[in-house]
């Protein structure tokens, strides 16, 4: 391991909402920015008068340039909203380029005359097609022109999670806003066993919005940030949906929950319909229950099966079934070892049962264990990653530190360093 590479290992995690980045010298916590870029209207009179608007703005300065809210949808770009960038989405790639350059520049060593660029490890969704890897390498080559990158590599987010968590044989279930990826790892990511689910935190938001409409809060249901807050503050993950709903219908006062937004008159009260709190968590894990049918019939979008790149994302599969399918694509000898270490990662698994409802509500590992047991899978160990927010970045740093610099990139195994001069 060369001392230069150790000193200048740099990690980048392109999450759906946040961009986490920094060199190994950051310690345990990387720098975090919103993963977005803003394209100001350079033709506007104000911008012409000031003659200082850049083509694109990233980082903490974005709010300073925001113009009318009507323009936000077209000018504020979140490149990784669904984990995948379309091949021809030039503006999204422009944001990736700019935010990478911004992050690397922030840590460019000013004193070291021997600095030749960072050993950069970037992490993408495991469902990213090959063209995303190619485009990202091209982006890094461009950034390298400023002397910021010496060599780069790309690893999948579940692989980085496993590295960051310190387990070499496991199944990583990474659930973000747009989708959920199930990826077995045995020293290497087992790509042929990857199972992708077209359901994530966004679907939990959808059912929360429908419930709010039914409760008479249709106006609030249109505000995504508010819906998300209701989901996070009032949503519950049931141990068993039928039993939880029955108990909540029998004694609604025990399950009643309100959300009051401080500084406003806004208050949401589930009242007699507090049993619906359980629908929010269940929909993430298993949307097949007939209770959800009425919402779908009334217009709630049903999670569809879609194909992105070479991967088919199933919409309605329950998460335990996704794990079983993924593990059963691996050698039989390996399967028990994989079930022994199931790692849950991502904000979509942050369910905390209130103490007084522990008989009916669960956290994500308990629920997953129970669903697997129903499928006859026993002796499983399901855990949340130690540091769900930063484990991908941790994995990137360990990967960059440990992988020898002469281990060159190979498209078959999708690993290794790609020198910028290559």
């Amino acid at each position, binding site marked *: *391991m060369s*001392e*230069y590479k*150790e*000193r200048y290992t740099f990690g980048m995690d392109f999450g759906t909402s946040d961009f986490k980045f920094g060199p*190994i*010298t*950051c*310690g*345990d916590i990387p720098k975090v920015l919103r993963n977005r870029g803003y394209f100001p209207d350079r033709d506007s009179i104000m911008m012409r008068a000031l003659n200082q608007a850049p083509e694109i703005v990233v980082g903490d300065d974005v709010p300073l340039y925001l113009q009318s809210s009507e323009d936000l949808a077209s000018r504020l770009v979140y490149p990784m909203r669904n984990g995948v960038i379309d091949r021809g989405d030039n503006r999204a790639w422009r944001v990736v380029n700019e935010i990478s350059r911004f992050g690397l520049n922030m840590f460019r060593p000013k004193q070291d005359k021997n600095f030749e660029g960072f050993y950069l490890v970037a992490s993408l969704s495991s469902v990213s097609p090959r063209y995303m890897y190619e485009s990202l390498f091209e982006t890094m080559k461009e950034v390298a022109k400023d002397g910021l990158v010496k060599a780069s590599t790309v690893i999948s987010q579940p692989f980085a999670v*496993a*590295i*960051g968590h*310190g*387990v*070499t*044989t496991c199944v990583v279930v990474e659930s973000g806003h747009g989708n959920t990826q199930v990826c077995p790892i045995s*020293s290497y990511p087992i790509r042929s066993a990857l199972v992708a689910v077209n359901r994530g935190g966004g679907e939990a938001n959808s059912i929360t919005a429908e419930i709010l409409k039914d409760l008479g809060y249709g106006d609030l249901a249109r505000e995504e940030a508010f819906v998300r807050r209701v989901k996070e503050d009032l949503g519950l993950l049931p141990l068993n949906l039928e039993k939880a709903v029955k108990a909540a219908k029998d004694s609604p006062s025990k399950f009643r929950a309100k959300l009051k937004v401080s500084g406003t008159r806004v208050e949401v009260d589930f009242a007699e319909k507090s049993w619906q709190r359980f629908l929010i968590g269940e929909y993430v894990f298993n949307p097949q229950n007939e209770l959800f049918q009425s919402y779908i019939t009334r217009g709630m979008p049903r999670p569809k099966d879609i194909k992105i790149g070479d991967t088919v994302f199933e919409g309605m599969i329950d998460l335990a079934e996704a794990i079983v399918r993924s593990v059963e694509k691996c050698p039989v*000898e390996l399967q*028990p*070892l994989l079930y022994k270490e199931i790692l849950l990662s991502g904000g979509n698994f942050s369910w905390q049962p209130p103490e007084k409802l522990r*008989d009916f509500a669960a956290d994500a590992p308990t629920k997953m264990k129970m669903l697997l047991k129903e499928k006859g899978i*026993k*002796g499983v160990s399901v855990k949340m990653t130690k*540091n769900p927010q930063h484990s991908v970045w*941790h*994995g990137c*740093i*360990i*990967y960059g*530190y*440990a*992988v*020898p610099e*002469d*281990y060159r990139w190979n498209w078959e195994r999708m*690993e*290794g360093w790609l020198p910028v001069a290559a």
Partner: protein
Amino acid sequence: MTAGLAESPIADTGPIPDMLFQGEDTSVRVVILDESNWANRQTFLNSIMKVAALAGKSNRTYLALPKSAASITDARLFRERGIGLFTYDHRNVEEALPARYFETAAIVASQTNMASNDRFENEIRELRTQIDTLERTVQSLSEELMSLRHMPSAPEPLKALASTRTLRPIAAMENPPTFFAGNPWVEVLSRRGREEARIAR
């Protein structure tokens, strides 16, 4: 005399009255000083002591005296202790001194008991819930143990490797980040490329 009370069988464990009357929430105990025995000093003292011991244990306690003895009895002594006096002869019985009403220990106890019972019931319910949870946990642990016994005891050489390796200091850092500590991937990844080369040879 019974004032709506009915005579009940006596089942006391302490001093035994001669008669016990009970209604819905009221009980009256009566000790009778028999006319034929009243001149008997020992029997007389026994009755007095018995009625004194019973005072306050039921709502009202009476001593029934022969009318002939009433004139020589100082009612004040009984009033001070809340004991009532009946006088009787061959024709009738009269209440010479009403007994004081006592809130009996039994009634208070029964109210206390009701509160305690509620508390105990709640505690029992909670304990049942906790036992159910424990049973589920034990069942789940037992199943895990059984399945682990049936699993092939596959070794985890990669983890074992990690524990044997000490991470050397990272350049430009006094201490490596905490997520490096004991992380088996440092060893696994540092062999990338070396394994393929060894296999190729």
